[in-house]
């Protein structure tokens, strides 16, 4: 067993410039498309970047902790039934819905949106944003 304890911090590094690029993507691609709030979190539940439309008052730290745990639980369930992963993770509510998208092995994109945005459009916009976020590291 090789231990990796020297790696106390996240395996990824994000400088100020990269964070700004990511925040820009969240703003331009998602908030301007009508989503209420969007979070980039890591698999441990830390918030990496966040943008919203200014009228959202959710408890985002709890949301991030629950979202990462939820994603990990669903991912484990997928493995148990022999799937590599479940591709669509989406919770529909009366007025708010939540969409989860895996960005890469470290990050998740959590989007909160209302009835005025269709799931189809949202998935398209999220897929574009995910691609752009991955390009930040490229």
């Amino acid at each position, binding site marked *: *067993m*090789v*231990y*990796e*304890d020297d*790696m*106390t*911090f*996240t*395996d990824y590094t*994000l*400088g*100020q410039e990269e*964070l*700004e690029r990511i925040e820009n993507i969240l703003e331009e691609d998602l908030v301007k498309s009508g989503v209420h709030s969007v979070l980039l979190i*890591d*698999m*441990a*539940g*830390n*918030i*990496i970047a966040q943008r919203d439309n200014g009228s959202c008052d959710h*408890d985002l*730290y*709890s949301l991030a*902790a*629950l979202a*990462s*745990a939820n994603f*990990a*639980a669903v991912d*484990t369930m997928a493995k148990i039934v022999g799937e590599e992963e479940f591709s669509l993770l989406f919770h529909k509510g009366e007025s708010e819905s939540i969409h989860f998208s895996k960005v890469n092995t470290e990050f998740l994109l959590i989007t909160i949106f209302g009835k005025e945005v269709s799931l189809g459009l949202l998935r398209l916009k999220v897929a574009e944003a995910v691609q752009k976020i991955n390009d930040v590291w490229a």
Partner: protein
Amino acid sequence: MAFVNMKTKEVQAKIVYYGPGRGGKTTNLEYIYSKFRDRIKSDMVSIKTHGDRTLFFDFLPFDIGKIMGYDVKVQLYTVPGQVKYDATRRLVLKGVDGMVFVGDSQVEQRKKNILSLKNLQENLASYKKSIFKVPLVLQYNKRDLEKEGVPLLPVETLEKDLNSQLKVPSFSASAVTGENVVPTMKKIISLTMTSLQNVMK
């Protein structure tokens, strides 16, 4: 795996309370929540069964102020203690920065403490972390039961059972009365911050 945001000068660190079922992990967090209610902006999140047992985890975000110019947010988590919830327990450990092991001082729980600590070692190893290197504090909980005539393990026995190899800081505590709950938390925060500070310089 704490996250440091260089732009907002914010650090998020994850501290997990581990230990056997019904040992007092959730009660530790509940005490901290009630004690620091004015400083904790959000509600404590608990995912539990109808029988009030932790099903997935409890979560309490806690702003501890500025350290070396960074706003430090500590995220306190508990795991479900029951043996059958090992899969979810392991998920909560993902990205952990510091650990509190809450042992149950009752004589009849002796074996469960030892098994739970061993389980922690195995689960940390699944993330390639060594229990000997992760910041860790032991808490011997339920010392208040002594007054009620419940047979308790002497602290020396608990030290021998759980801490003879680890040699980490330990506290005799009562999560119900709050005795040594805050010192336990302060100790693990300080150990965790020490382990992180090289990167924050």
